[in-house]
């Protein structure tokens, strides 16, 4: 066994940090979540030629160690408390923004870490007319410096041999021998508190102590014991802020004097491509048009292109189920395998095409630098509702399916905006609601035309879409007032240079998200569907001996009913459906609808097939089912079950209710706890119940 070294990968956003991470580690990585917050934690590893094992943590992108978001707090805490025992830090900088990127580097040097600097995107230097004297830069910073390009297959840059990723790996040990420069101690920030800290902790790194003092609210109780004296110091926000501003100005001065000696740019070679593309893509008219066209393509793809592979998956699993049923003994185990487990897995894989397509687009747009432009274009519209400009993508994708849509909220940097987006996305009318809407609308809404050309049924459907959309926007507004954030909203957004997507990054993004869904949310979905299957296929005495009871009852009442319908009625699920009847009676529903409401938790469209079973209409024949439901009468009153009032009540219920455990599962996965899925469940179902209640009571 060789040595083990633990590194952190740190850098500004948009420096190609993740590409470099992927390059360094290949696919050897693990993705998790930092406890309690929606920031993912990525760890990878690789071996050096001498057998040294390197473990590397990809920390969230940040502009400095003074955090301005939850993501950036993670970087501060990881590096300052260093619970993970990080030995050294690999800093990634972008050759186009070297000055700004070096701020973070100098901070890390001041904290006392062994540091190595990788200047990425060196392939662009020639085109941009940039020259960097790396040898001199190494000398001035006192650390190893490399030019790399994460874009090219072997990491080659224009400087032959210098940009290789392999060489970069092998130079890692150099950082531990280097004599890294310090800056902060020369800044002489005159402040009595700093003097006090200096005197009381003479052996501890001063900049680290300064960070603990100035960012003490980011550490909470984590440092209460070790740095009691610092926390007891008077803390006046305006004074501290002035100190921090002085610090930044001093750092810029230091960096300017370094860059003067090593950095040359000849602008005559620069093409200014990004500026030209922005003129079109951010144009008042063309920019918006292109944006909506891109969104239309994305929407179209997840809505219709995904349906082809989804049908294959469906067909494959039903074939497999039939095969197993005909080749295995007809017993409980086979039923569990086919109707429980297999259909659960099918339910998970069913989402794969949509997630793949959606993330393919998102990864491409992100890679090319267009996602920031979406925020720029849409911020003015979304911001009053507490949403990010990027929320447009999840909200729109939500019209196909909330599951991939909620996952796509990952691209939203601000934790509060991301959370709100995820919480309101399920209110957007998804495609699973369509079959339910269409059957109920055809039952209770007349098929007449308004003004001779507008179909009322179509108008009602459109109205339901709008209702879902407004509910989402309105809820976002309410939530943005309720959910607290430590950070006042200032709009500062870097607009990265446009670049061609790196194919490898795109497929890694898609693959990572698929894996996260299948193995994260997937487990919960399979578990839920097994439970639901069990409840629908097991029951008490009347279920077990259903055939005998059915014969008896039919002899007495001459009521036409088939066995499967009778069994569902007396299964645990049916009994539950009956027992909730008092609760749903005020909405105008009977126990049959109650059972259908429960089963539609598997997926909303199951409502239709459950009604088919209950009403003993085979083969999901919509026309037959429609006629059967239309003729259904209440046993007691003799009135029609599906009156106009009941229909509207049901439609409203389906607009608002949280009736999809896949969505709950993915919310759990993305937010890291059951707190938010539980909230969404009660919030949405609560609205659903109230609106359905009022609609029925007024209309009946």
């Amino acid at each position, binding site marked *: 066994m060789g040595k083990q070294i633990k590194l952190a990968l740190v850098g500004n956003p948009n420096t190609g940090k993740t590409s470099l991470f992927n390059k360094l580690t290949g696919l050897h990585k693990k993705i998790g979540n930092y406890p309690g917050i929606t920031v993912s934690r990525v760890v990878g590893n690789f071996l050096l030629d001498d057998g040294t094992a390197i473990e590397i943590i990809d920390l969230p992108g940040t502009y400095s160690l003074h955090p301005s978001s939850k993501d950036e707090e993670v970087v501060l805490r990881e590096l300052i408390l260093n619970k993970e025992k990080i030995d050294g830090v690999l800093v990634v900088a972008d050759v186009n923004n070297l000055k700004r990127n070096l701020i973070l580097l100098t901070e890390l040097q001041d904290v006392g870490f062994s540091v190595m600097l990788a200047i990425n995107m060196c392939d662009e230097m020639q085109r941009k007319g940039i020259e960097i004297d790396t040898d001199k830069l190494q000398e001035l910073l006192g650390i190893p410096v490399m030019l790399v390009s994460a874009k090219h297959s072997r990491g080659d840059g224009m400087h032959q041999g210098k940009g290789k990723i392999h060489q970069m790996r092998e130079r890692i040990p150099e950082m531990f021998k280097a004599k890294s420069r310090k800056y902060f101690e020369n800044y002489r920030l005159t402040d009595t508190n700093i003097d006090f800290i200096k005197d009381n902790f003479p052996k501890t790194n001063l900049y680290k102590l300064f960070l603990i003092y100035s960012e003490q609210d980011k550490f909470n109780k984590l440092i209460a014991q070790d740095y009691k004296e610092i926390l007891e110091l008077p803390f006046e926000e305006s004074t501290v802020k002035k100190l921090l501003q002085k610090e930044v100005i001093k750092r810029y001065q230091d960096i300017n004097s370094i860059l003067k000696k090593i950095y040359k740019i000849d602008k005559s070679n620069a093409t200014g491509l990004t500026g030209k593309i922005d003129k079109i893509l951010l144009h008042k008219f063309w920019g918006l048009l292109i944006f909506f066209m891109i969104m239309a393509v994305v929407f179209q793809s997840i809505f219709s292109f995904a349906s082809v592979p989804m049908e294959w998956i469906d067909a494959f699993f039903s074939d497999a189920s039939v095969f197993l049923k005909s080749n295995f003994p007809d017993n409980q185990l086979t039923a569990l395998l086919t109707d429980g487990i297999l259909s659960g897995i099918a339910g998970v894989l069913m989402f794969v095409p949509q997630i793949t397509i959606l993330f393919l687009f998102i990864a491409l747009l992100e890679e090319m630098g267009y996602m920031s432009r979406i925020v720029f*274009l849409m911020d003015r519209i979304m911001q009053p509702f507490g949403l990010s400009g990027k929320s447009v993508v999840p909200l729109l994708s939500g019209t196909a399916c909330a599951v991939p849509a909620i996952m796509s909220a990952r691209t939203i940097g601000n934790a509060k905006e991301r959370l709100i987006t995820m919480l309101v996305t399920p209110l957007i009318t998804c495609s699973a609601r369509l079959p339910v809407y269409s059957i109920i609308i055809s039952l209770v809404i007349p098929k007449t035309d308004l003004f001779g050309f507008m179909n009322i049924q179509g108008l009602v459907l459109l109205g339901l879409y709008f209702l879902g959309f407004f509910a989402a926007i309105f809820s976002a507004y309410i939530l943005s007032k309720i959910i607290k954030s430590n950070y006042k909203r200032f*709009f500062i957004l870097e*607009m990265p240079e446009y670049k061609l997507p790196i194919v490898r990054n795109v497929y890694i993004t898609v693959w990572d998200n698929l894996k996260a869904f299948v193995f994260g949310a997937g487990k919960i979905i399979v578990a839920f569907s097994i439970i639901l299957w069990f409840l629908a296929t097991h029951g008490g005495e009347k279920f077990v001996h259903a055939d005998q009871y059915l014969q008896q009852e039919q002899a007495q009442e001459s009521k036409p009913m088939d066995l499967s319908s009778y069994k569902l009625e007396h299964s645990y699920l049916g009994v539950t459906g009956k027992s909730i009847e008092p609760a749903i009676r005020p909405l105008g529903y009977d126990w049959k609808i109650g059972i259908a409401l429960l089963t539609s938790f598997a997926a909303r469209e199951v409502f239709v097939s459950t009604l088919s079973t209950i009403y003993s209409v085979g083969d999901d024949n919509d026309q037959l089912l429609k006629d059967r439901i239309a003729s259904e009468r209440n046993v007691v009153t003799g009135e029609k079950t599906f009156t106009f009032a009941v229909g509207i009540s049901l439609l409203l219920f389906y607009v608002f209710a949280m009736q999809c455990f896949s969505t709950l599962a993915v919310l759990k996965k993305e937010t890291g706890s059951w707190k938010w899925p539980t909230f969404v469940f009660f919030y949405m179902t609560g609205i659903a119940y109230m609106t359905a209640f009022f609609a029925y009571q007024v209309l009946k």
Partner: protein
Amino acid sequence: MNLNNLKIGQEATIIHCNDGKLPLKLMEMGCVTGERIFFIGKAPFGTPYYYKIGDTRIALGIEIVNEIEVDLLDG
């Protein structure tokens, strides 16, 4: 003059942006006294505004733009 008064296509030098109201992040991203700032354009619905500060392309909300003082460069 206030950055808000800069017209699209004009360039200026930042003379004051370390007001206590603004986030430190702004300075960390290069918005410090002495840097050049170029006004590229506005978003279709009015805000945010789009600038180039030094080598960084950056979009800023109006709440920030109003707090920055600049000196217009001639020509």
